[in-house]
């Protein structure tokens, strides 16, 4: 090949190749920036451009909360560390059928929610009073770090219901929604209901986790599960339960909830902004307590119950209206209720709770009680 031809080919290569290379590099740079700042960009797309995208929780956000990693962070860290110990029962886990008499509350059995016996897998079609069965899981020993890759399989199944993103907020409310508030929650499980469940503690963990993810993405409110305890000898009926619930020890939790087998009726099941009974929905097979939990928390935040069944909010399945919708109806909140909840979130009603139960950590037997650090 002659020198002239080689020279001509080189000129052509640089004439075409350099611009294409520069443009490709620019596009690749954009891809790199987009991939490394995914959360921020998705948040901008959702809040500013009104696009229908799902903003993932950032690792930094998961690590917040007065230094607490949260249950999910502990579970993931434990799965990374102790995959070899698949079937080992954690020390200190109390068998729900054998109450530990050393606890100060003899009819309350605190259990570390970070050491569930069997976590849930894919939800199966079960009667409303029977939560899904779950396989054995890895118990966390010393939680250290979050997973290295987002490609790791999730430890919990995806929420069985879809979530419809709400309408855009005004700029003022957007800033309220972006400000993440964490509420420490303690859950008491009615033993009468728990006896019929395969893994009541895993189910409670799962339900609170799902409700927390919905509230965090839509309102900036995170429900941090502090502890779970079995409520032996709970009175029958929502009213009597409510009367006793608020006097229970909270062990540092700001919100005290009780999961029960009573059916959801739409009536208020709280007497105090910091404690409430969560009934179950007989029309939900996958997550009987999820909609009622969303409804009750919404009421605690100050949103009104939607009673007009002809209203658009009800027909579209807002959880402040049709809390008895079946699992096929996506979870959605109407704009009016959402605005009320955002304003209520600023007021932090759970901190004004007049519950007479101790809010300071109660002295308990270390072998019987474990809390998330």
């Amino acid at each position, binding site marked *: 090949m002659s020198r002239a031809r080689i020279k001509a080919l080189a000129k052509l290569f640089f004439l075409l190749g350099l611009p294409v290379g520069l443009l490709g590099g620019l596009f690749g*740079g954009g891809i790199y920036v987009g991939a490394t700042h995914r959360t921020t960009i998705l948040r901008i797309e959702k809040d500013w451009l009104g696009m229908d995208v799902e903003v993932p929780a950032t690792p930094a956000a998961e690590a917040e909360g007065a230094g607490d990693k949260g249950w999910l962070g502990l579970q993931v860290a434990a799965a990374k560390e102790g995959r070899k110990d698949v079937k080992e029962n954690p020390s200190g886990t109390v068998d729900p059928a054998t109450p530990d008499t050393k606890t100060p509350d003899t009819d309350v059995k605190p259990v570390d929610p970070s050491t569930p016996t069997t976590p849930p897998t894919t939800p199966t079609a079960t009667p409303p009073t029977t939560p899904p069965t779950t396989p054995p899981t890895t118990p966390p020993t010393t939680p250290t770090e979050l997973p290295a890759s987002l490609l790791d399989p999730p430890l919990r199944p995806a929420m069985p219901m879809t979530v419809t993103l709400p309408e855009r907020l005004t700029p003022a409310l957007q800033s309220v929604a972006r400000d993440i508030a964490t509420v420490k929650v303690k859950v008491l499980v009615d033993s009468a209901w728990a006896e019929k469940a395969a893994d009541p503690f895993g189910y409670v963990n799962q339900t609170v986790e799902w409700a927390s993810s919905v509230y965090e993405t839509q309102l900036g409110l995170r429900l941090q599960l502090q502890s779970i305890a079995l409520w032996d000898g709970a009175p029958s009926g929502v009213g009597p339960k409510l009367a006793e619930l608020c006097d229970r020890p909270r062990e540092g939790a700001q919100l005290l909830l009780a999961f029960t087998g009573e059916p959801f009726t739409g009536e208020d099941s709280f007497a105090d902004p910091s404690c409430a009974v969560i009934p179950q929905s007989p029309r939900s097979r996958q997550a009987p307590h999820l909609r009622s939990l969303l409804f009750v928390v919404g009421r605690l935040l100050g949103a009104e119950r939607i009673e007009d069944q002809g209203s658009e909010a009800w027909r579209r399945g807002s959880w402040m209206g049709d809390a008895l919708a079946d699992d096929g109806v996506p979870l959605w909140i109407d704009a009016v209720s959402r605005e009320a909840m955002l304003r209520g979130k600023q007021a932090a009603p759970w901190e004004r709770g007049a519950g007479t139960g101790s809010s300071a950590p109660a002295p308990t037997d270390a072998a019987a009680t474990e809390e998330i650090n």
Partner: protein
Amino acid sequence: MAAKETAMKANPAAEEADESSSRVGWILGWVVAPGLILGVIFLGGVYVGANSEESWMTRAVMWLFG
């Protein structure tokens, strides 16, 4: 003669107008338009990187630079 003087006086103003419009044109043609095109290409990459985390392009870029 008077017409020539008028034409000469009008010329500087016309020249100034021509100069400013060419400056604006220069800015538009060499700064704004290319900047827009390059910006769109970059933002397209950002969109792909943020929304298509599992696509081959994103994985290739992260493999190269990640």
